[in-house]
């Protein structure tokens, strides 16, 4: 085999100006990334803007109740396509013991998990879930950017209830109760969309316990043209 002639290849020429530009660019990218993850960059994810049509949703074991801006209970939240909506989530467990019990009684009116409507074992299931610490819900609206996890556990006392709980949604809002969560979104599609309790894991691992998989408010968000 012929011997290849040795050719000295000059190394690439260094460009100090390019190095300076790249260094500055990288420094800027690093700072922006840091700010973004601290939530301080202009393009960082934003929280609720609290604008548009206001609704209140009460997730309870195991269902939802909805209210309009005047705290009138409604079957469905009706808006127009393109509307901004701010939804306040008021967990039933954040309300007084009696109010929570009233909401939970609604569950008994429906058949659930193979148990007929009115079966007292549903009540036992709710009590069992509370004993297990299954007190939170993850609220989602299908096809919409709504995904809110409640944070009520830290306000509950040893008995699993709050000492000075507001008796109603309106009172909780008036008091600016710390358990209230809000989300603002814009409706982009026409139709009726379900409000659901999204389970917490791919295996259906429950955040709110036994009944979470039946926590579906069918067509509770109605978007009209």
């Amino acid at each position, binding site marked *: 085999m012929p011997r290849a002639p040795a*050719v000295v*290849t000059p190394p690439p020429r260094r460009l100090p100006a390019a*190095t300076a530009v790249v260094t500055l660019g990288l420094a800027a*990218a690093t700072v922006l990334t840091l700010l973004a993850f601290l939530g301080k960059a202009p393009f960082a994810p934003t929280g609720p803007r609290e604008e548009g049509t206001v609704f209140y949703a009460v997730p309870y074991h195991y269902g939802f109740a909805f209210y309009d801006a005047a705290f009138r209970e409604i079957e469905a939240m009706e808006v127009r396509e393109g509307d901004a909506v701010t939804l306040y989530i008021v967990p039933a467990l954040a309300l007084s013991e009696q109010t929570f019990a009233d909401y939970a009684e609604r569950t008994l009116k429906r058949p659930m998990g193979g148990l007929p409507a009115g079966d007292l074992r549903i009540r036992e299931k709710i009590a069992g879930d509370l004993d297990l610490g299954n007190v939170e819900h993850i609220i989602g609206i299908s*096809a*919409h*950017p709504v*995904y809110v996890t409640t944070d009520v556990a830290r306000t509950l006392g040893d008995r699993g209830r709050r000492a000075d709980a507001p008796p109603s949604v309106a009172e909780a809002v008036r008091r600016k109760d710390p358990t209230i969560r809000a989300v603002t979104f814009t409706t982009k599609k026409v139709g009726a969309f379900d409000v659901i309790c*999204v389970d917490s*894991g791919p295996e259906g691992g429950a955040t709110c316990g036994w009944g979470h998989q039946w926590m579906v408010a069918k067509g509770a968000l109605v978007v009209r043209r």
Partner: protein
Amino acid sequence: MTRPSARRLPELRLVHPLLRLPAFQFVAILPTAAIVAVVLLSSWRGIEHPSFNFGLMFTWVVWWGALLVSLLVLGRAWCLVCPIGAVGEWLQRLSLWWRSPYTAGYHLRWPGALRNMWLPTALFVLFIWLDNGVGFSNSPRMTAGLIAVLLLGAAWVGLVFERRAFCRYVCPLTSFIGLNALLSAFELRGRDGRICRTLCDTKDCFRGNARRYGCPMAEFPGAMDTNLQCILCAECMRSCPHDNVALRLRVPGQDLWEMRRPRLDGAVSATVVVGLATVLPLMMLTLLPVVRRALAGALAAGEATRLVAVGLLFGLGIAASAAIVYAFSALARRAAGDPGVPTRLLFARYAYALLPLGLAKSLADLSDHLFRTWGVVPDVTRALMLDFPFNQVVPGRVTAVHLVPPLGTYLVQAALLLGGLLFTLYAAHRISLRLFPERDAAFASFLPIAGLSFLLTLVGLWTLAVGLP
């Protein structure tokens, strides 16, 4: 380079023209760069639900699974298409694939004290510890943060140091991927060692020339005897003026027994990689509750306790893994009855033999995850398509599809572990023959390592069985 003892299998001549294309690596990176961009956006801005977040699910189920499987067949092929390492290279070269006459950066040599696998192994352990402690792989935001840190880290290291110092000496995956690439069924090597030694003065494959760059991983293919640092970019193939580099098939795992200079850092790293998959799950299952209870009085309850407890067990588990392999190497030395072979050498060789078992256990862990969460892949894809690329929309309820029942999953896992055990036994046998010229001494030395392999397999089978109905 050319190993007379190695079994030479055919070259893959059909793909050589593809590998020689100047833009081969760049074109290979483009699709993964696009996917990584979507993964980064969706995990950073997208829905926080782990089962609806495309970035999270793609990273920890699809990518991780594909990576583990690819290691067996293609070695470090992920590094070939990884856009993270490429970013630093592009900035440094001021080019995407062509040989630029200019360069940016400071081109410092990587510090001598860090020219080993200690740092990447420590970073790998750090990541696994954080994942076990705070659930990195369950958090879209932390996943996005990890990708961003890796991207910026690769860019900075590429700017300051020469070649792909990040990929070789820093990337937390480099020790895991590099070590498991030793099991691969492919290798990129020189065809004829005499040409490299006697006919080639320029060593273009290492230094580069006017048309192409030298090896970005700072390997000299003429002396390379393992896949440890070969990212299959084929730059050596393109720059070699003698057409003396080829991609070929080989006996899988050949590097484990054929490597000429097994290094201690690599061997320790191998025990860490294997220990994380075998010894550590055992300790977590048996000791974590005890350690957490013990710490409960000293630390505030919550994640801090868990993080510290997991950290303690990690330290203990890694030390135990290395100590166990060293102890069995000492037994192997005693059994062989040859005082001329130091325990350290036996440790440095036999530690690599355990890699197939470690990879098999990782695959077994993954198969359980994959069979249980398979239904989520269409869920996250649907969620991403509803709001591309931000992934902020809830697509509905999570689909729970258990592809295989728990017992079936366990049988698959057991089969994987047994496959890993056989592979490890074969590698240990070949290593023993290399260490001891006499077959009796070799066999005697092999027996304790075989015993350790059986023990680790039983540990794996037991930890996988916990929780079975």
